[in-house]
Each structure stands twice: as C-alpha cells, then as structure tokens.
C-alpha cells in the first residue's frame, strides 16, 4: 500500500491503524489523547463571546464525552452515512452543525424507541464514537462564517456589504444569470426558483429559513436566497408576490448546499486554533436528484 508522507503523518495518530499496517505507532501528539469533552471545552474557550452555553443545540448528542479522541470529523450534518465514513477514516469524534436524531433539539422521544435510532446509536457506541454539535456558537462568530464562506465560494465577496454579509449588490444581471452563477458553484440539484428569469437583479439577500425574513428581504432586495424554507408559508408568499405584479425572486436551495462550505471553514478554523488534533472535513452532500 502506497501512502504519502502526509498520509503517514495522519495515520501515525491512529495507533490502531498503524498496528494494522504493521508499523509502530510513531510519535503521538499530546493532544491526541484528549477527550471529546476536553476538545469541546477548548473550542468553547477559543470561541469566547460566541460560545453559547445555554444553547440546547450545541451539546453532546451521542457517545461518551470522556472518550479519547483518535481524530475529528467535521460535517454539515451527522447523518448515518457521515458517521460511517468518519469511522472508516478512523475519526471517532464527529462535530456536526445540524441534528443527529432528526429534530432540532435532538429530542429522544419520539426517537428513543425507533429501530433506526437504536441502529445509529449502537454504531456510535460500538465504535467508541462521540457526536457533538456546534450550531448557534458557530453562527455567532464574526464575521458570520456561513455567509462569509458562501460569498467566497460564489465569488460574491466583492459584492457583499461590509455592514451585512448576507446582502450583495451586483451590476445589473438577469435573474437567470445570477441563478446560473449560484448553481455552477453549488453542488446540488436541489435549487428551485420563483421569479421571472428575465427580471433584473441588482441586490440579493440571504434569508435563512424564515418566512418573515423572506418577506422583509423581498421588500428591500430584488432577490432572496434561502436554504430550505417551508413551502406553505414562504414559497406561497413568493408565488403571490409574482401574482400581485411585484418584482422579486426567490432562490430556494437545499439546506446542505448552503452550509456545507461554512463547515469546511470550521475545519480550517479548528486546524488553526487546535493544531495537533487531527481533523478532516467529511462532506454530507444532500444526494437529491430531480427529473
């Protein structure tokens, strides 16, 4: 098996993998013996004022926080697939942005008697893995990292307002061209548009998931980008906007496609602030397709 020097350096962190390869464990970084709890504590202290101790989201979700960490997998969402791929890479501490057990607060009822929950939990426990979430705290970092990452990916950082990273002002372009730029840089098939493709867009704002934010966004900008909205409220408002003769457009993309690269930013942030702890970004990818 050919392994590069860099891969060897990474693998040497994992005594198990090294033993399988018939090698000595090599130098073990002091941090490699940290527990998930110790790493989470370190992250929270580095995050400073952005750390949200009262958040019900940013907590441990599965596994024993006192488990020694072999490596960290950062991801948009701790799907079963992401957890499995993290394990296959020898990474036992999953840091996720989104829930693990299918509700915002990772509620045990109704999941606790569900066979799929038990399967996922057993996989995590059997493989001595730990899942921890950073959502609210990561969003509170300044400049807000999800929007900064989106602007950078789209090449829109030059258009973003310094006072509000969610909002961009462009040279006038037809909606279809703005959408084409978005789609080209966003690896998902799940982009749905409400608006006239020939309509002119000079300003655009990101609105999260909320109907209220979208209504306000459409009052002040030519277009909004939302990563997941509820259709009965927000998409229906967009439909009525067009029917009322209003100008405006909504670009509705999958949740994953809008935040995946913001968690890649988290990975880079982690490497910078916690050097010596091995971390890899594990892409979630929404895997949606259309016809």
């Amino acid at each position, binding site marked *: 098996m050919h392994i590069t020097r860099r891969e060897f350096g990474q693998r040497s962190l994992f005594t198990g993998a090294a033993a399988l390869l018939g090698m000595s464990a090599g130098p073990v970084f002091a941090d490699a013996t940290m527990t998930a709890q110790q790493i989470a504590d370190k992250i929270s202290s580095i995050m400073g004022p952005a750390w949200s101790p009262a958040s019900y989201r940013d907590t441990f979700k599965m596994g024993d926080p006192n488990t020694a960490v072999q490596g960290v997998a950062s991801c948009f969402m701790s799907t079963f697939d992401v957890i499995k791929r993290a394990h296959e890479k020898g990474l036992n501490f999953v840091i996720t942005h989104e829930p693990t057990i299918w509700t915002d607060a990772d509620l045990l009822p109704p999941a606790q008697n569900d066979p799929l929950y038990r399967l996922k939990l057993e996989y995590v426990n059997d493989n001595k893995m730990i899942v921890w979430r950073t959502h609210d705290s990561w969003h509170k970092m300044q400049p807000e990292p999800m929007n900064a990452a989106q602007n950078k990916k789209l090449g829109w950082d030059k258009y973003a307002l310094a006072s509000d990273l969610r909002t961009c002002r462009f040279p006038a372009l037809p909606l279809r061209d703005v959408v084409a730029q978005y789609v080209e840089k966003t690896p998902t098939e799940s982009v749905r*548009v409400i608006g006239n493709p020939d309509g002119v867009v000079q300003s655009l704002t990101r609105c999260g998931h909320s109907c209220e934010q979208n209504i306000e966004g459409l009052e002040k900008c030519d277009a909004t980008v939302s990563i997941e909205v509820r259709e009965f409220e*927000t998409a229906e408002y967009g439909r009525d906007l067009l029917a009322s003769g209003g100008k405006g457009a909504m670009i509705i993309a999958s949740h994953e496609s809008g935040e995946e690269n913001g968690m890649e930013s988290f990975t880079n942030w982690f490497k910078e602030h916690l050097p010596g702890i091995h971390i890899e970004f594990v892409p979630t990818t929404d895997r949606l*397709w259309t016809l």
Partner: protein
Amino acid sequence: MATSLTADAVVERIRSQVSKSWMGGTSEGFQCGDLGATVTGIVTAWTPTIEALQKAISLKHNLMISMEPPFWRESGTVRTEVSMGTPSMKVLEASSVYQYKKKLIDDHGLVLWRFNENYRALPSNPRLNALARSLGYQAHENAAATQKLATIGAGVYAIPETSLADLAKKARDGANAKALRVLGDPKEKVKNVALMPGYMENEDIMAMVRDRNVDVVVCGEACEWEAFEYAEDWITAGWGKGMIMLGRAVSEDPGAQELAAWIRSFITEVPVTGIAVGEPFSYVPSHKA
C-alpha cells in the same frame, strides 16, 4: 330570495356532514369576509393563492374553502404547520403583497373559510385517496397497512415492481410535480410505497417505515433536518431504497379538488369548483433545457 344560501349555512352543512365526529379546537374557521353573505358559488383550493382567488372572481364564486390560511401564517392559536418564522402582522401590513391580496378579497366581497383537520380526518380519506389515484397507486392499496397509518393520513401500496427512476417519472407526470426531488439510487427496484400528502414530520416517517414493509416513501414536503435526514439514514441502513418529495402544493391539489366533489354531493344550489394551484416554482435550473 328563497334559495339564498349564506356562507354560514354552507359551513353548517359541512359540519353536519362530518356530524358527531366534528373535532373542535382546530385551526378551522372564517378567515375573511361576511359569513352572512349570500353564496354565489364555492371554490376549493389547498391554499387560497391570489391566482385561485382571481379564478373564483372570474367564475363569480364568492366563497373560498381552503385547507390553508390566506396570509402565509396561522391565523389563530392552533398550529397545524411547523413554521420556520411566522411573519408578524407588522411585517405583513408593510408588505405590498399582503395589501394587494387583502384588497382583492375585500373589493370582491370574497368569503374565506378554512377547512383543514376535519377534512383530513374524514373516514373516507379523500385527501390521501385522491393523491393515490393521481399517482396510479390506489388500485394497489395494502388496506391493512394503510389502516395502521389512519391517524396520520398516510397509505401503503404494493405497486407492480419498477425502478425508483420510473416511479419518480410517473409521480412527476401524475401529480404535475415538475420540481419534485428524489433521494436514493435511481436504478433500485421498488414495489412497496408509503404515501403521505402534505408535510411529513419525523414521527410520521417513523410510523410509515416501522413495519419494514416499505421500499420508498412519497410525501409532499419534509424538513431537511427531520424526516428528510431520517430518510437518508433509513436508506444508508439498507432498510429503504428511496424517498420522493413531490412538493407541498402538488401533493395537496388532488385532495383539494376532491373536496369540491365531496361538497357537491350535499350542496346542489350553487356551483362548486375545485382548483389545482399547481407548484409555486417558476423553474428548476438543474433541469436540462
């Protein structure tokens, strides 16, 4: 006028059809207009879009019966939807769309009544059956499995085996769901379908797949960190093969049109017209031209 039928009287007749099983404390009720107004005709729609209201006006029907409220928000204290940020009245009143829609309703003397939970709970299950018919599943119903899901309004069907890709194509054509989204390997063979019109919550999908007798789940809409993530995990586990999200509106349109047929069975004095609102999306850029 001897044949005068008020909006209030229409609602009373609907309630008496549902009879003693009428549930109170629901989201239902008058949304706009004068409930004493004489009804010239009834339109039904999943949600009273501006276009649906304009259609009602052109048909000279003044009573709109819909499953959703007109102003993109729950109008009372009862929540039937998982909102991701209900607009305040202050924000709504500042919106040109709100002003336009409200004026359209007021200027034409339209009366809007919401019929939702009690419609969904009808034992004849028109909301589910109408969608199952449009998708071509109804003749293949697994009645015993459907019965177990009665409380959530979902059904189970053993259709002739097909690929997930072909099932999705048939769903797109049957439901006019051009913006539908699919999860799973398109080549997988599927046979047992669980179907739920509307918004599928995580508890719904848990109930739909619990007996491990389903290959694919078809719904209107699902939250991407709830039932959608569950479906991803279900497929990863090898327990399921696919999930199709038709789009909320098109998953409700057949049921909303069936509502018109149901009302026609006991209201004959005025015309009753069902309207399909279609999907709200203008286009899907990933579609090949």
